[in-house]
């Protein structure tokens, strides 16, 4: 009797934490990684006027990993989520073009701070109930490397950060991580959180047909109010300045000259 009901899908254990299943990918809109930012003359911030924006490179790796899980039959659906202003829809459409099935924008004024982002994503997580949540390890603007871990703590989930390999085995997620001395592998109970490092995969390019198809895929917008989250900023940026400039160096014309400079001028050897 129970077997029949299970096979008709009418009752049974929830798909939460069971494979194949949903993967949630959190992505961020950031400056394109080729851009060299300049600080504004009034030292209030960096100058982002007319700067090219893109999906954060580590988030692209996250999308790629999720899409590969779907292609290998280990995930049923890939949902991309971004937190930020309405322009983030561009990056969500990119995620859809790369293979995500659906996108969610949590629309805010500007970009909230990591703790608020983590709380908003927890709200989306509760609604979506994925088995795996993948983040890029850090965004190349703030370079914080915080949001994925904060989210994992709020959701009470295990985390595999700086991942160079992700392997699903039943309802365990094995993550090989790049750590200070080499590599470490941890086993996490699903649902779990992964943050991607550079060598996890090489992201694909979006083909033109996929870019066109992405325009028709679902993109829903939520608000912090709807998720019951109060966005708070507790870190104030007082000033932004360029780094100390290195003094110009010289070219030497031989190894001998180099060694002489290092010994007698710089005195470092």
């Amino acid at each position, binding site marked *: 009797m129970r077997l029949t009901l299970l096979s008709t899908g009418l009752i049974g254990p929830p798909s939460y934490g069971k494979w194949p299943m949903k993967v949630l990918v959190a992505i961020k809109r950031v400056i394109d990684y080729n851009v060299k*930012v300049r600080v504004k003359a009034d030292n209030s911030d960096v100058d982002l006027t007319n700067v090219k924006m893109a999906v954060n490179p580590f988030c692209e790796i996250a999308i790629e990993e999720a899409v590969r899980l779907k292609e290998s039959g280990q995930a049923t659906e890939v949902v991309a989520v971004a937190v930020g202003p309405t322009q983030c829809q561009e990056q969500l459409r990119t995620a859809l073009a790369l293979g995500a099935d659906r996108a969610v924008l949590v629309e805010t004024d500007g970009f909230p701070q990591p703790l608020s982002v983590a709380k908003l994503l927890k709200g989306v997580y509760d609604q979506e109930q994925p088995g795996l949540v993948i983040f890029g390890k850090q965004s190349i603007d703030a370079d914080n490397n915080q949001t994925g871990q904060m989210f994992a703590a*709020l959701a009470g989930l295990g985390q595999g*950060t700086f991942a160079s390999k992700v392997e699903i085995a039943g309802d365990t997620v094995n993550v090989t991580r790049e750590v*200070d001395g080499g*590599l470490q592998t941890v086993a996490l*109970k699903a649902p779990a959180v992964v943050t991607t490092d550079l060598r996890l995969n090489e992201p694909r390019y979006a083909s033109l047909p996929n870019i066109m198809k992405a325009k028709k895929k679902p993109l829903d917008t939520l608000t912090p109010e709807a998720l019951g989250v109060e966005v708070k900023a507790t*870190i104030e940026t007082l000033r932004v300045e360029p780094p100390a400039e290195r003094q110009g160096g010289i*070219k030497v014309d031989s190894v001998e000259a*180099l*060694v002489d400079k290092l010994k007698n001028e710089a005195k470092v050897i």
Partner: protein
Amino acid sequence: MSILLVAEHNNTALNPVTLNVVAAAQAIGGDITVLVAGEGCGAAAEAAAALPGVSKVLCADAAVYGKQLAENVAPLIAEAAAGHSHVLSAHSTNGKNTMPRVAALLDVNMVSDIISVESEDTFKRPFYAGNAIATVKSSDAIKVVTVRHTAFDPVPTTGGSAAVEALGSVHDAGVSSFVNEEIVKLDRPELTAARVVVSGGRGMGSGENFKILEGVADKLNAAMGASRAAVDAGFVPNDMQVGQTGKIVAPELYIAVGISGAIQHLAGMKDSKVIVAINKDEDAPIFQVADYGLVADLFQAVPELEAKI
């Protein structure tokens, strides 16, 4: 001010970066309690007790902390943070992995990778791959902060005599476990602490060719590093990567061989005291930060350098 400082250690000894974090704590001011969490970590706790300016050491010695699993260590730190104004750690793999969980558990934001202490609530930190420096002020009740160790001179290893208190709190989140690790053990100084670093880039051509750097590294008692390109190409393992998302180093001398000098690599080494670049491309961006640049074929120049040092 009352600072809880999370020690970086391997159970037997403190990792040198802990000495730089103590310096950052001293810059903030107030009393310093060091937390040593691990398994069989008594010796590390004793070493922490000898550091100058430390008033107390808490030693949480339990199997669940043995591999520094963030899910277990973070609630321990959050619990121990009660009554403190700041929680500090190095911006190391462990610091990056664990401290954001601590911040979330304490319901606060955090300030990562600080390069200076301006006051007890104001810090400077690099962002945009080190192309900009932000001065930030936190209004959080507890300031959770990770420290870029290269920005602070280390305190001496002796001068203190704090008491070591056992902290019996055991947190086993039960959602993660250690499987295995491949840690490279070299007879070289550690990359982030070495006085001299010799780094190879894509120009090295192969992993085999990195051997030609070894002679120079040996003579200078240097650590060896690499650019992302060299690691991606499989020439060398990931723990050698210097850069925005790899290791940040600031040695007395950084010798970049066959490295073009992409922004992201510079972010990891441009605070080195003296930078030398050897590259056959005279337009390589690395020459803009090098104090001494040699436009030459590295396969000639490096063996010659080894002979002439």
